[in-house]
Structure formats: C-alpha cells, structure tokens
C-alpha cells in the first residue's frame, strides 16, 4: 500500500494540530482531517473562553512553534490561592497558598484565551512542512490492515497511512469504529464559564473557592480581566444560565466576593455539563486515541487540555523511538507503549480530580472541618506545598521529552 502520509489525524481542535506539529517536527508526514472550515478556526473574536496551561504544556507549545505566537497574550499564573467557602460567608480562615517563587522552574502556568491559541495553531500548521489539512470533511470509516490503514472521508476520498489517531473528542468515532468501549459517569454538575472585567488588578493570582455546590475558579487573563469556571448542580446551572446578564452577575457576586472590586461580563457565557469518560483502551492495531477521545475529564483545574498535550508528547516520543528502530509505527506493540505510559497517569488524575470534587462539593460539617484542617496542614509544610505546586505545573510523573526543561 502506498501511503498518502505516515499518519492521519481525525480532529482539528487543539490536540490534533498539536500532535500534527509535534510529529511533523520529528520528521513524519501528517494529514489532519478537520470537520470545520479554516475561517472559523482562525476567527478573531474573544468569546470568553480561556485555557489554564500548565508549565509543562507551555514547554511543549514552545517546542512545536506555537508559544512564540501567543506569548504576548498570555497571562502568567504566579500564585494560586485555594479557599474553602460558602456563598455569602466569605472564605474560611484556612487558606492554601501556592507561590511559584517556591519552585525554580518559573510560573506554574499561563492563562490564554482560546482565540489566540486556535489562530496560532492554524498559522504554525500552515507554515510547517509535511502537514496537509483537509477542512470541512470527516473520517467516516477506517480499515486497518497488515501494511497500513485505509481511512475513508465523508466526501468519499480515501487516505492510506501507517496509523490513524483519533483526536475527535469525547464521542470519538475513531474509538467507536475500533470497537473501543468507554467507561464514564456524569456528576450532576454543570460548569458555567465566562470572562469578567474587574476594577482592581489580579496580580497574576488564580483563585479556587471550594463551595458546597462545586468549585469556583477565578483565573487571571491579561489586563483587569479574569476567566471564571463556576460549577453548580445541573438544575441550578440551568436556572442561572437562563437569566439575563444582570441577574447572572447578581448570583455570581456573593460567590465571587469583592476583593477585585466591581465586576462585569467581558464576553459570552457558556455551560459545560461535567462528566468523566475514559476509553477502555487507548490503542488498537493502527489506531491510537489522544485527548478527550481517550479521557474526557472534569475540568476542575483546566486539566483537560494539559492531559491531552501530555498524550501528544508521549505519542510523539513513542512513535519517534519506534521509527528510529525501524519498527512499523502502526503495530500494536508500539502503540501499547503509548497506552501503558498514559493510562496510569490518566487514571491517577481522573481519580484525584474525582475525589477532590466529591470531597469539596459537600456541605457536611465534619468533612468541611477535616478538609480545612488538611488544607492548613499542607500550608504549613513547605515540602508538601512544593509537591502540589509541581503537580499543578504538570512537572510530576514521567514527563515526555517535549515537556522537559
């Protein structure tokens, strides 16, 4: 079989282009199949959504030629403050405080509006050699064989490659067609997402308030703006979502507090139902899954994209090593190395995120006392605190080369 490219990537969101750029840099030829037109991806309007990029993710973006294009628009996260609170009551006296000055690697992460990230990916892909993007088409069939995989698109076009990677989200068609089942559950919670403008500067500090209905994250954007991820029960979220902007802000204000002065909306409002979905396998012969296609996570700490980029780093490394050995990059022995590398991390993170949410989204007074004491203890122990900071910066575990200093 003559291959059109070494690898076909289904999905043109963020993980797909990141993977394409990483692979092209390593010398592979890649075709990206993106259901949406190029123009939408390159859109310029701020819609209120942002990403909290861990330091490890930022390093990967730098290596694949994306970071230099967005750096000027990124807000470094210098400190993270975690507070246990109840709406209207203010924060509990126990406060977790993580300062990047305690680790030598730099800021724990960066906040970036998604419009800049999408546009940077488009530009980098356009300039990269060995990347072909097919817009407004999608993968509808895949036939893995001994010498390669034949991928059929909705337009009828067929592509031959050694490997097909599904970066096609939580309802991955690539995974479904490969017979890979998923395990998952909902939380009965919905995240309300928006950007706000505020009177006072945020000084690069991210806040996480743990409140009974769910956490509220305030993440610093450039200027006097912050990105809000606010979790409520599904029913409450639906009611809040139906409100006019003024009423919406009136509900947010007591949760938010007044430490940043007067607040107003600075973009559109979004809602995302929360749930966890993990594919039972991340690989099959000539198939690999990356990002939400492998594991859709509760976005408590913005870990979804960070976890996806870690998949990207791991898969690029596994495939590069395999090619240097002369191995067939689509064979299951090679892809299982990627699966083993990522599955442990993913399960640990999914479990930790799930536990954190269950522990903190609770009004039981004993639990509240317990977690307040726990937070106080972490705060008193610098070693423990540095561990948490490194974890938040994505610097723990077996880091792919693309994410190392």
């Amino acid at each position: 079989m003559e291959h059109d490219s070494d690898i076909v990537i289904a999905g043109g969101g963020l993980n797909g282009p990141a993977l394409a750029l990483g692979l092209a840099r390593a010398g592979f030829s890649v075709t990206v199949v993106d259901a949406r037109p190029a123009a939408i991806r390159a859109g310029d309007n701020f819609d209120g959504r942002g990403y909290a990029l861990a330091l490890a993710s930022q390093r990967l973006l730098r290596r694949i030629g994306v970071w230099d294009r967005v750096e000027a628009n990124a807000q470094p996260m210098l400190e993270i403050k975690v507070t246990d609170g109840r709406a209207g009551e203010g924060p509990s006296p126990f406060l977790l405080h993580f300062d990047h000055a305690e680790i030598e690697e730099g800021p724990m992460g960066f906040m970036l509006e998604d419009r800049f990230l999408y546009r940077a990916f488009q530009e980098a892909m356009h300039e990269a050699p060995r990347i072909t993007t097919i817009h407004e088409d999608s993968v509808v069939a895949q036939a893995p064989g001994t010498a390669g995989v034949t991928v059929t698109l909705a337009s009828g076009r067929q592509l031959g490659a050694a490997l097909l990677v599904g970066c096609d989200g939580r309802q991955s068609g690539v995974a479904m067609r490969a017979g890979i089942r998923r395990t998952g559950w909902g939380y009965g919670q919905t995240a309300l997402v928006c950007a706000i403008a505020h009177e006072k500067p945020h000084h690069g500090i991210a806040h996480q308030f743990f409140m009974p209905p769910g956490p509220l994250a305030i993440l610093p954007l450039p200027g006097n703006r912050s990105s809000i991820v606010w979790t409520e029960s599904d029913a409450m979220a639906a009611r809040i979502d139906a409100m006019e902007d003024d009423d919406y802000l009136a509900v947010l204000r007591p949760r938010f507090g007044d430490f940043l002065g007067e607040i107003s909306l600075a973009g559109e409002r979004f809602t995302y139902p929360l749930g966890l979905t993990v594919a039972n396998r991340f690989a099959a012969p000539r198939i690999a899954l990356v990002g939400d296609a492998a594991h859709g996570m509760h976005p408590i700490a913005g870990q979804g994209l960070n976890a996806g980029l870690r998949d990207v780093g791991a898969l690029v490394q596994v495939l590069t090593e395999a090619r240097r050995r002369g191995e067939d990059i689509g064979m299951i022995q090679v892809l299982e190395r990627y699966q083993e590398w990522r599955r442990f991390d993913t399960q640990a993170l999914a479990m930790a995120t799930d536990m954190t949410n269950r522990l903190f989204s609770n009004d039981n007074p004993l639990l509240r006392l317990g977690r307040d004491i726990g937070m106080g203890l972490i705060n008193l122990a610098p070693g423990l605190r540095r561990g948490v900071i490194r974890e938040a910066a994505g610097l723990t575990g077996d880091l792919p080369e693309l994410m190392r200093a």
Partner: protein
Amino acid sequence: MQAVHGTVDPAEIAKFEAMASEWWDPNGKFKPLHMLNPCRLDYITRQVAEEFARDLNGSEPFAGLRILDIGCGGGLLSEPMARLGAEVVGVDAAERNIPVARAHAEQSDLQIDYRHTTAEAMAADGEQFDGILNMEVVEHVADPLDFLTVCGQLLKPGGIHICSTINRNPKSFAMAIVGAEYVMRWLPKGTHEWQKFITPDELFDLLSKAGMTPVDRKGFVFNPLSWQWSISERDLSVNYVTASLKPA
C-alpha cells in the same frame, strides 16, 4: 519473493500467512522475542548508524547498506532493517521459516531477499555485506569459531558484525533454562544447552580469532517489575550483545 508467487499454490500461501501471523503475534509463542526486540533494535541501529555515520532521524538512514540477518526466523529484525532503507538478505537454516518470512514482508510491503541457506554457502558464493546481524544464533551452532570465521569472510572491510548470545554462569542457567524454559514456559524445553553458552571474554576471543576487532559489549537485562528489557553497560550476566568491526 518469486518463489511465493511463481511456484507455490495459494493454499500454501494461506498456510504461510497464518504461520507469519503466529511469528508476529506479540502475545503468541514468540512473545519473548517480541519483548526483547526493541532493545535489540536499539543496539543494532545505534551501532550501525555510528559506524556508517548515518542520522537515524532522517528518512531511510540505512540506504545503500547491505545487511545480512542470520537466523532471520519470521523477519523480526530483517523488516525493521528494510524499513530503515537497507538492502536486506535474511537467511535461516530452518526451511519452513523462509516462505513465512516472505509472506509477512509481502503483507508489509517490504522488499527482502529471504533465502534458505547457510552462512557457509553464502561465503562460498563470495557474498559481501556492510553489516551482519548474528542474534541468538552462536549458542546453537556446532563450532562457534568456524561459524564466526565464515561471518568474518562475509563482511566487507570496515563492515560491522553484531552478535548476541547468553553468558555461561549459574545465573544464566537459572534464568535462561530453568526460568525461561521450565517456569515461564517462554521457550520450548531443550531450546538451550547450558554447556554451549559462551562468556563475553570467550566471545571476544573467538571474534578476534575470526579476524574481527571487537569494539563494544553490553548486557540485555530483564526487569521483572516493569516487565521490560533494557540495555545495561555493566550487567552482562545473562543476555549480552557485542559489536565488532572487520579491519579496513
């Protein structure tokens, strides 16, 4: 390749393809070889790339090199070498392996010259190679010095010979024979005779007598916790590999 298409009937081909999938099944009866293979390939590719100043990150880094794989089996080493651009001849003394390896190369779209012959017969024909892979073979031959001398003759001046085998000591007896053959059932009982195992010093001595210059030796070490093989600088106590050059 011609033999498969020219003279063998389709039912035979189907049989060989089934046997090929057996050879290439990572969880099948050749599982131990599949587990060891990435490690072997790491060593081989780095040594060959270094000797001929090739960049493994480039495309087809071994283009222009003629490589002989002795004891090729189903082609677990021949195929990667061909994928890296080398012109590969794979030989096996077991006749049944040849059509099996050919069938798999055909399925994988690779050009490999598989032959049922011996190193001695190839040397008599005056064949010459830039690289010879002699992996897990020397412990099975009747006279290692005769065999390695023939390997030396098959090598072009400046060519590289990679040879791996099993050390001879109580640990290798425990690991390779009791462990692999009797406890884990990785290998059929009687695969190895412990007396035929060769120590690294003995092998270096044999390689020198065979007209080659040994330049490197490393261990292949199995870690039962990670369930993986890795290359070791120091631990050559059971499986080990050597590189030697034919003086230019």
